[in-house]
């Protein structure tokens, strides 16, 4: 059977034409999947999905045109070329998603890689159908050939376009989908060595190649789990204008509809449209209770927005900002949009920026006590963050405060995470603080809560700094009243050895996502 047979007119039974039509169906599905993967992935990573899909589809289709045109330069050994082509598509298309994720994470030339990959896959896919038609041209009448191949090509596309959003994305995700279809493509190659055997000559080497490609893709599938986290973090609705993986987190700035947003590990930190509500509420009530404060501590808040509010008080002589991530404070200093929003607050001579874990820093670094402290950490969704909301943290914090110091703590949403909110209050009380919780509406977050606290009893602030955008004396007083659906609930104290808050918080927020 494995005799070498020269290409040319052959009697009909030598090729299995109906089965080859079936491969058209499969390769059409694979081709569309690669296109969808590239389009989806670029929308996730770069935002602006219409632009991304438009350019990806355009480049892909034009590359297919290029491939079709190039097919005329292939003359001999078409069957062998076809199998090689399948393997090439399998490799480039199959690894396209992992390649693109890596390019986004580790290079500055993501778009070059994106369009390069789309171009390569498109060109290779464009070669497939013309070559297959030429292989079949002597076996099937031309009108049957064109009708059959194009019908199956479009039906394959339908299969893929339905499978992709309904089954593949939900169950497998981008990386596994692209690898799986690469594997399918390579399988078509292997299968073709059987279907085209009469035209191929010796098939051992070529089958070995198929096996190697399939093995590579299979190994890729096994490792695909590593990429899933990266994908989860990349669901943004708007255009990404800044993205950086620091040693601690992924920092992303997106822009849309006249405002911009900061995300840390995919969680919204502020929107420029309404952050003033949040930061005014965090900062000014504490100043109202302790006017004339000179030394101010800010834990977290590396975006510099709380500092901006603090510096509105002329008596302030020193602000110490302790934020874990130099990537964050550098961005707050250097990224033009953020720098403009925080008024270059971090470069003010009164401000000292320290990049350290606030809890470790408070515990281990001696220094004069602070008059005010603002605690503005991300919500407690991990144990490493949860420790910053424990009674131990508040005790350590108190050791660094003057006796009449006031603390304001961001304490998540009293509406969406009611138990978590009151857990923070209860924990602060357990550490010996007198606590007065309050809340306001921040449209991009929802109803948001804070806790004002001091070692001594104190009155709800009556007068805030005049000239603010949101807070007035009346609005300030109103923040301290809790409607019925946010009233206090009994909860356990969050301690280092139980970290109940992390469990409460993740359970409560799961309902809203």
């Amino acid at each position: 059977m494995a005799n070498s047979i020269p290409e040319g007119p052959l009697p009909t039974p030598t090729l299995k034409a109906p089965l080859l039509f079936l491969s058209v169906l499969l390769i059409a599905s694979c081709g569309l999947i690669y296109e969808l993967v590239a389009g989806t992935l670029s929308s996730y990573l770069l935002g602006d999905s219409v632009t991304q899909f438009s350019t990806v589809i355009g480049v892909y289709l034009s590359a297919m045109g290029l491939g079709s045109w190039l097919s005329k330069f292939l003359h001999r050994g078409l069957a062998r070329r076809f199998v090689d082509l399948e393997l090439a598509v399998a490799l480039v298309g199959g690894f396209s998603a992992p390649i693109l994720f890596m390019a986004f994470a580790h290079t500055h030339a993501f778009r070059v890689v994106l369009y390069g990959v789309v171009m390569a896959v498109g060109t290779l896919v464009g070669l497939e159908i013309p070559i297959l038609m030429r292989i079949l041209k002597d076996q099937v009448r031309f009108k049957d050939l064109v009708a059959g191949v194009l019908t199956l090509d479009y039906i394959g596309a339908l299969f893929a376009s339905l499978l992709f959003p309904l089954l593949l994305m939900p169950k497998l995700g981008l990386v596994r989908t692209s690898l799986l279809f690469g594997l399918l493509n390579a399988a078509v190659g292997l299968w073709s060595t059987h279907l085209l055997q009469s035209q191929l000559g010796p098939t051992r080497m070529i089958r070995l190649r198929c096996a190697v490609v399939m093995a590579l893709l299979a190994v890729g599938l096994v490792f695909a789990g590593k990429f899933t986290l990266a994908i989860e973090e990349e669901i943004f609705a708007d255009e990404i204008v800044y993205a950086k993986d620091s040693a601690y987190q992924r920092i992303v700035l997106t822009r849309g509809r006249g405002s911009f947003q900061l995300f840390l590990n995919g969680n919204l930190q502020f929107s420029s449209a309404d952050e003033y509500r949040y930061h005014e509420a965090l900062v000014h009530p504490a100043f109202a209770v302790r006017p004339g404060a000179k030394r101010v501590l800010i834990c977290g808040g590396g975006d510099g927005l709380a500092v901006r509010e603090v510096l509105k008080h002329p008596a302030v002589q020193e602000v110490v900002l302790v934020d874990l991530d130099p990537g964050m404070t550098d961005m707050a200093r250097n990224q033009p949009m953020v720098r403009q929003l925080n008024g270059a607050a971090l470069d003010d001579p009164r401000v000292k920026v320290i990049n350290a874990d606030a809890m470790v820093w408070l515990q281990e670094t001696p220094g004069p006590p602070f008059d005010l402290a603002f605690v503005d950490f991300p919500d407690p969704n991990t144990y490493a963050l949860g420790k910053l909301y424990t009674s131990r943290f508040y005790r350590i914090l108190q050791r660094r405060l003057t006796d009449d110091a006031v603390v304001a703590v961001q304490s998540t949403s009293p509406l969406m995470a009611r138990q978590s909110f009151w857990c923070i209050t209860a924990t602060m009380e357990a550490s010996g603080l007198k606590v007065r919780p309050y809340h306001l509406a921040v449209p991009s977050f929802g109803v948001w809560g804070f806790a004002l606290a001091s070692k001594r009893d104190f009155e709800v602030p009556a007068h805030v700094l005049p000239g603010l955008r949101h807070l007035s004396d009346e609005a300030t007083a109103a923040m301290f009243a809790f409607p019925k659906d946010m009233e206090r609930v009994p909860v356990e104290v969050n301690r280092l050895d139980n970290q109940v808050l992390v469990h409460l918080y993740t359970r409560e927020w799961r309902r809203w996502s």
Partner: protein
Amino acid sequence: MRSGSALLCGIGGICRFFYFLFIYAICSFKFISLCGLAIMKRRDFLAAAAASAIPLACRPKPAFPFPGELVGPDLPLGHWLRGGAFPDPDRFEPVSVLIVGGGVAGLSAGWRLAGAGLEDFQVLELEPEPGGTSRSGRNHVSPFPWAAHYLPVPDRGNHAVLRLLKECGVLEGFDAKGEPVFAEEATARAPEERLFAYGQWWEGLYLRAGASVEDERQYHAFFREVDRWAAFKDAQGRPAFSIPRSRCSDAPEARALDSLSFAVWLDGHGFSSPRLRWLLDYACRDDYGSRLDTTSAWAGIFYFAARKQGPGEDSRPLLTWPEGNGFLIDHLRRSCGDRLRCGVMATSIRPDTDSLLVTAWDATNQRRLGWRAKRVIFAGPQHVARHVVEGLATVRPAMTRIRNAPWLVANLTLRSRPKESGFPLAWDNVLRDSEALGYVVATHQSLRDHGPTVWTWYRPFTGPDCDAERARLRAMDWPACARMVMDDLRPAHPDLEGLVARLDVMRWGHAMVRPAPGLLWDPDFLALSKPHGAIHFAHTELSGLALFEEAQDHGLRAAEEVLAAYGRRERSWR
């Protein structure tokens, strides 16, 4: 004609593209959010099967890209004892009490004597640092334990431990119900434990994922049985299981457990669930250096029942420090002050008229030392006692029944933490499919969640023949030890090797006494705690259980025996 039709095709292509795009643009918002939701749900299921399937084909390379060394105990010096024949020193210094051994038992004895105002004592420790298996180390990253690294919070009846913790500032007071309140920074921080199985980390030590209904039933049935024992009180009101064991009931029904191995007891109660048995076997390896079939059922149940806050309640929380129980050692050694002599090995103890003559070798200054002591507290292990105290083995044959499991402990200093997914880094991190016990993170308790850290990795040698296991451990050089550690951790942390700044290894020849069936309640074994003339004995192995509380209890007992011999009427600290 040809160019015309080509143009038509071109226009057709453009139109098709725009229809496609139009439809897409309408759907896109919905589509993206759909995918987003789908991904969130997927998180729980995927990623499990992946990593475990990778074969460990890449065998270790001959060398490691990081330095390290084998550190103490001083094997040649210790074994030199067996040679015997040490000439006497020039003079014998008089002393009231000489304590041989500066581990928990010896230091606790010193603590007790000093507490009673008996100041004239000396503590001799063979190693350059005191603490025995509670020793700790320290480098530029963190302090770290070299062996014992936690203490379950004591119940209110454990006066000795409460007294110690109060002195250390860890016991802050008592709540309204009279229960002790401990400093938050010393209670083991959550998350406490995680388990690596099926290529992924899971919360807790008992693997709930994939457990069958029968597994769950047996798990609960076992802990009901533990509760039953936790509730047991004998006619005198003593519990069956308590820490230290001197507070335990000697009622026959409890003692009967000691005649069986834990494995046989489990078989007899129909506990066959592989997950449950893994957990219990892990407990035996972790606390006793033995396996289900070489551990007494009494000891197996003791592990769980003695730590219960009460029947049906949770296990007691644990107290821990970055340096492990080295924290407690630091306090105890302060109470001994300059009476603690490290690097000094007692070579013989012999009676002489109304006192004891003790000879010793000062390894630091390379000279012979001698003491004439009224009383000696021998706070070393029995296998050393038989070489030091002449004729002891013939009058106390039970001492040869004590078997100590060897351990290998490694401290890995890491430049940064490995990347991983699943349940996050905990205090205690255990690999299910491993002979080792996993590792403890020294920086966990000091709240450092980022950057460099030190991991302490533990491996008991649990084979039935301790001597053979010890010989095996002694034959291992540093590369062999390092290889054992890295091979063990590779499945969970394939990228670990590049993160290790150094890896130091402690080979403990006699780390832990094994509570073999029949040992713990054997009258001859229990009689080993009795004094031999003016020599009093204190060591955790006299309990048959290697625990801080046991060592401390024996130290206090021996010290109080001495105080009684001096005619001091003291209220017991025990």
